[in-house]
């Protein structure tokens, strides 16, 4: 539980100033920076190669602020799609944020409205992973900590996009594809940290197994964004049903 006076937060048994929590949030972003840089660099470079101006690339990085949606934007615009198909595709790819934002909501019960809006506006796959793990460990998400995490992610993302846009053709493709893999390793790392912070590792493992299996059989058959959403909903539902069955079974015996 986090309680907040004017300038200090109690997290668990310890007291921190807002500035100290902000710094801790910045530090927590550290491991993901390699990922932001390689994907952001790639996104900016593809923007330049697709004929977008630096201003447009900055606007996409800063305002849309979502790697996969930015890649989609560039490629659909390149194949001549207009506003409506691009908007619908971006909305579909970003639907997973509805789930992430809902999962974060439990930590915002005492937060002010502007804190909720900013906390949501800067939500990404990576900051969600880091914040979900912190929330689980400490039972709370102090706004100063989240702001430190979110702002450093956002700024790194924009700077990486600009660097990629300016240096589009100077990196060897083998290196960029290898760095691109840091996106996957980041998700693996976040998944493992969430698992280690979990209180119910059996069901958490089952959730992962169901999500992996459901995604593996459906990717390639249906749109990957739909596959990810469907697999997430299925895995969380199976785990919840088993959790509930286990609880009611335990009560009876």
């Amino acid at each position, binding site marked *: 539980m986090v309680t907040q006076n004017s300038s200090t937060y109690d997290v668990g048994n310890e007291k921190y100033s807002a500035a100290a929590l902000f710094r801790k949030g910045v530090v927590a972003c550290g491991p993901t920076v390699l990922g932001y840089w390689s994907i952001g660099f790639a996104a900016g470079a593809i923007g330049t190669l697709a004929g977008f101006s630096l201003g447009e690339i900055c606007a996409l990085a800063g305002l849309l602020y979502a790697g996969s949606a930015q890649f989609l934007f560039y490629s659909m615009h390149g194949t001549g799609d207009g506003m409506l198909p691009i908007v619908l595709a971006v909305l579909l790819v970003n639907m997973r944020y509805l789930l992430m934002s809902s999962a974060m909501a439990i930590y915002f019960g005492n937060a002010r409205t502007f804190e909720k809006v900013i906390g949501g506006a800067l939500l990404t796959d990576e900051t969600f992973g880091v914040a979900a793990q912190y929330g689980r460990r400490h039972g709370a998400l102090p706004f100063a900590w989240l702001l430190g995490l979110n702002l450093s992610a956002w700024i790194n993302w924009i700077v990486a996009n600009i660097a990629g846009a300016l240096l589009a053709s100077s990196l060897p493709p083998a290196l960029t594809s*290898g760095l691109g893999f840091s996106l996957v390793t980041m998700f*693996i790392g976040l998944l493992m940290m969430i698992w280690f912070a979990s209180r119910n590792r059996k069901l958490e493992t089952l959730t992962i197994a169901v999500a992996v299996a459901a995604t593996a059989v459906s990717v390639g058959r249906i749109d990957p964004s739909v596959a990810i959403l469907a697999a997430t909903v299925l895995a*969380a539902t199976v785990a919840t049903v088993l959790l509930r069955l286990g609880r009611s079974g335990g009560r009876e015996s």
Partner: protein
Amino acid sequence: MNGEILSTIAVCAALTLLVRALPIVFLSRMRMPAVLLDWLGFVPSAIMAALVTAEVVGRPAMTPSGISISLVATIVAAAAGAVSRSLFATIVAGVAAFLVLQALLM
């Protein structure tokens, strides 16, 4: 700058903002039923696992001999994460494995 591109960016950004912020703004005010809280508790691992799988299956990086570099590097990253319990070590081990395998096998 191109006006149609900018307005498309603006609409995409506005809708994405709503998708990201609305659940936090509204659900945090409600007393959610326990079953929904349980369900949301499983969302982080489910979504991360789905994202990893979609990436590895969608971009396997197959060698001529039929090995998926993405899959092997995923296993290396997971092993490094299990041993180190460090996010940074997991990322570095996975990327290093990918780069080394790519240099050796492709």
